[in-house]
């Protein structure tokens, strides 16, 4: 048996909220082999989207490991409290939370305080840039690079660029990944059944067609892992089925591993494996295909 494509061990993602710590993922252990089509099911707040974000390296786990094809996936450094954030927190307090005297003073002094505030922001910007933003940006770029090389992403609302035609939407992603290949772009559009719509703008085609363009776009740079968050949530049943059939066909043709988040139990028929989550933990993990 070949080594798994995705290996997750004891993955946690916690958020600090005013009401306390929210454990979106609370110790997930999970493996995926190449070619699998996994559907993540669960109620709202169960942690499916957070898991998807961690898988796509959009989000950084609080703890645990995430290995992709045997290599550790880059993460962003832990965010520290910043001076400027503290200043902003203090200066941006809504007026109605202030004492009446402070409120009046704040209004009267605003012509002076506003430039002072701007000046402080200006002075602190370079400091923060070197201490926080730059390292963070570097790590973010590593994560982006991981996404660019390995991940395809399909949104619920397609998010096609309205100023580009169907074909150009695909070419753009190739260009950004340094590999414009118009032949492949046209083939992908043929694969999703849109070879006649190449020169149309997104606004000129239906929602289902737009989602198929989004699928073609996500495949354009030959990802190894395709992720979809409620990708049929905005489509009617018939169109959903068409889109999923296209997707399965495309993934099989390209031998791409897929993970889809959905509420829709009917999509299980397109999966090879179903993982159910609740409260940040895996409730069940079953092979279906």
């Amino acid at each position, binding site marked *: 048996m070949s080594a798994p494509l995705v290996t997750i061990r004891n993955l946690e993602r916690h958020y600090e909220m005013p009401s306390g710590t929210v454990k979106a993922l609370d110790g997930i252990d999970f493996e995926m082999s190449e070619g699998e089509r996994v559907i993540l099911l669960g109620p709202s707040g169960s942690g499916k*989207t957070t898991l998807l*974000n961690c898988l*796509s390296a*959009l*989000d950084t786990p609080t703890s645990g490991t995430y290995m992709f094809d045997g290599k550790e996936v880059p993460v962003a450094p832990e965010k520290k409290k910043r001076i400027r954030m503290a200043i902003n927190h203090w200066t*941006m307090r*809504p007026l109605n939370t202030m004492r009446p005297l402070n409120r009046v003073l704040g209004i009267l002094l*605003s*012509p002076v305080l*506003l*430039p002072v505030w*701007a000046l402080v922001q200006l002075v602190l910007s370079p400091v923060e*840039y070197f201490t926080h*933003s730059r390292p*963070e*940006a570097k790590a*973010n*770029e590593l994560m*982006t*690079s991981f*996404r*660019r*090389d390995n*991940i395809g*992403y399909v*949104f*619920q*609302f397609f*998010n096609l*660029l*309205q*100023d*580009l*035609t169907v074909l*150009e939407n695909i*070419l*753009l*992603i190739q*260009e*950004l*990944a340094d590999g*414009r290949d118009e032949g492949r772009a046209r083939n992908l559009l043929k694969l999703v059944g849109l070879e006649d719509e190449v020169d149309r*703008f997104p*606004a*000129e085609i239906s929602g289902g067609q737009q989602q198929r363009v989004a699928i073609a*776009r*996500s495949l354009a*740079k030959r990802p190894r892992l395709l992720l979809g*968050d*409620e990708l049929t949530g905005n489509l009617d049943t018939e169109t959903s089925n068409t889109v999923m059939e296209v997707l399965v066909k495309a993934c099989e043709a390209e031998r791409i591993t897929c993970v889809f988040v959905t509420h829709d139990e009917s999509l299980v028929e397109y999966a090879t494996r179903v993982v159910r989550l609740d409260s940040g933990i895996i409730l069940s993990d079953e092979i279906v295909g």
Partner: protein
Amino acid sequence: MSALLTKRLARSLWKTKLRLTAVVLMVTVGVFAGISFGTYANSTQSMYADIYEDDEDGVNLPDIWAENTVGFWDGEDAESLCQEISEEWPSGSSPMSYCEPRIRVSGLMFNSEGESESIIPAIWYGIDEGVVDRVWMPEDDCCSGRLAIHEDEVVIDGHAVEGLGISVGDNVTIGAGQGRLDYRVVGIGYYSSLLYFAVDGSIVPAESGTLTSGYLSDSGMSRLTNLSQGSANLLLIDVEGTPGYDLQDTDENEGEALNVIIESIESVLESSSESPVITYDRSGVQSVEFLRQDAKSAADTFPYITGMLAMVAGITIFLSLQRLIQSQSREIAILRTLGIPRSAIIPGFMAAPLVMGLIGSTLGILLGAFFGGPAMVSLYESVIGIPAIGFYTEPSLVFEILAITMLIVMISGIRPALQASRTQPLEVLRGENEIRLSSRWIQEATSRLPSTVGLTVRSSIRKPARMLMTFLAVGLSMVIFGTMTMMMDSMDDIFGNDGINWDAQVNVLPGGEGPVIEWANEAGADYEQLLVFPGSAEGDGRIFSAYGLDEFSTSRESMIKLEILEGSIPEKDWNIPQVLVDEGTMKFLGWEVGETHTLVFGTKSTDVEISGTSMEMSRTVYFHRNDLSEITGIEATSILLSLPEQVEVDGQLADLSVGITEKQDLIDSFDALMELQKGVYNSIMALGVIIAIAVLFNTLLMNLSERDTELATLRVLGAPISKIRMMMLGENIAIGLIGGILAVFFTVLMAQSFIASLVNWSFYFTLQPQTSAIFELVGVVIAISALCTPYGSWRVSRMNLVEKVKDLSQ
């Protein structure tokens, strides 16, 4: 107006703090500039009026001057001329208040510095009665002492004392072609004809220490010039009331009442004076005219500068509000669905620009009144050299500026407010308002470009109206910077000392050129004789300087290098004397090359043919010296010397002359003036650059916020920040390039109209747009625009993609 709705809007606006700051900053800069320039314009106008007034503090400026251009009247003749003028005073005109003879001579001051001695050109005035055109000695640190009474006393001009280190009680050695004499300084004051401290014909105010002026008693002047007491070469005539005089920069004759009197005086002098006399009103006195014109152009210009800056602020407020409405369209649609009437939505969007305008204006007023105004005062004192008395920011000015600004700002809020109130809930909730079909034509035009470039182009011009407004704002914001750059270049071109290749100009009395030429021959110096004589065109009272040159040349080696714009150098010994006329004179008089016109020199007139046009700031007509000599009967008024190495102007030469101007002094004065001007212009340019930065930065922020979804999508799909940065850079450079080209267009228009408001008979120049200035302007806009890119890419790199994905899924 619902408080909750307004609060909601205020909070939304607060989320765009940086953009708000940029907008408020622009309003602030507009108001600041308006208050600063307005304070200058209003204060100078009222200050000159106060100085010229006939009261305890004023000098009682005459209304008419009659000047003997070649010699002097003795005391008896001068009194008799005044008497005749009074007797022949035209009936029906305002009565004559006073006629006072006065004497003005060129001379020198000999200033000892240790063992060396410097020779400073000087203008000396002999004041007898001192009823008209008194010495101005305000109660201020600038001035002290009293008027000269005794024959060995002098009052020194306040412009000169600092550079020469003179104070009341000092002794000074002065001369006026009759040897050297010692005088005691009894006072320090100013004179109306020299408030702008430059010799007649020179545009550049003399640097302190390179020119001096003194005011002597009648007996003191007699001692200095060896003329009898009461001698005069000027008659100062004061007319009762304040009759208007003919402004030199207009075609209209405002001084018709005074013209009747001038004609009468001319007729008296023509019949009674043996010497040629010219008669002129206040506009013929260079200093008076310069200062009037300066104050007038400042007054004419500041509302436009304020208005223009407020308009830039208005455009950005308009764009910001429009963007805000776009981002809030869903919320507004929900409110409308819930039944909130249009009238409840409009006030909030109208109040927003009001608040932004008020905050910006308050800051601008405070900065203008406490920093801009005082800075203008100090600048004024540095350039003009007289104490700025009565400079203050008038409340009426503050209200005027505030009204202009708030009006523009409020107008900019009307359309966005109406747009917000007209939001169609169904359209917005269906998301139809966000769907905008890209232009097929643009798609085809950019289809061969890489998709990244195509996307950049199409996104940039997605909203052509907004884009045009942005370009307009960028273009306008750079107008101040560009105008200043082009004006500096043009002035540098004309002001430059390229045309002067002599080392010293030695002024002599008529017939006094021989000894100076002898001195030059002995010293081995090259020389040329120069004859300068005031004249006017027939039927026009405005005075020009007629220059009689030995050599006409456009070569750099000649003593006076001429810049010929049209036509050719005058031919010698032509039937009708040929002349070269400066372009300003040609324009004001409507003359053309090749035409023949009659010129008047005192009581004589002659026809001349115009052979060409030259570039000069002052009104000048160049003759061959022989031609001008024949008309005026004078051989030369000065000798231009080109000195060999090791030879310097010495005391012997000084004793032979009535004034020596050294080239180095002119260069120093020019450099000092340019330095000061550059300081001013740099400050104004900095204002322009600040506005341009604010506009471009605001544009960048709006683009970012509008393309938020697009950029987030690209980032989630793995677009590297380097690619996005390149896209943004390309877009910013394109905005900068188009904005820069528009800025050049607006700048040329603005600079031309600004120069048109500035130039007058005494001071004329035209815009010389140079390629370097155009490139500089476009380059600055592109640079500012490109420099915004790192901030934009930094914002994109810091996008919280988890949040964005959440947004994209909603």
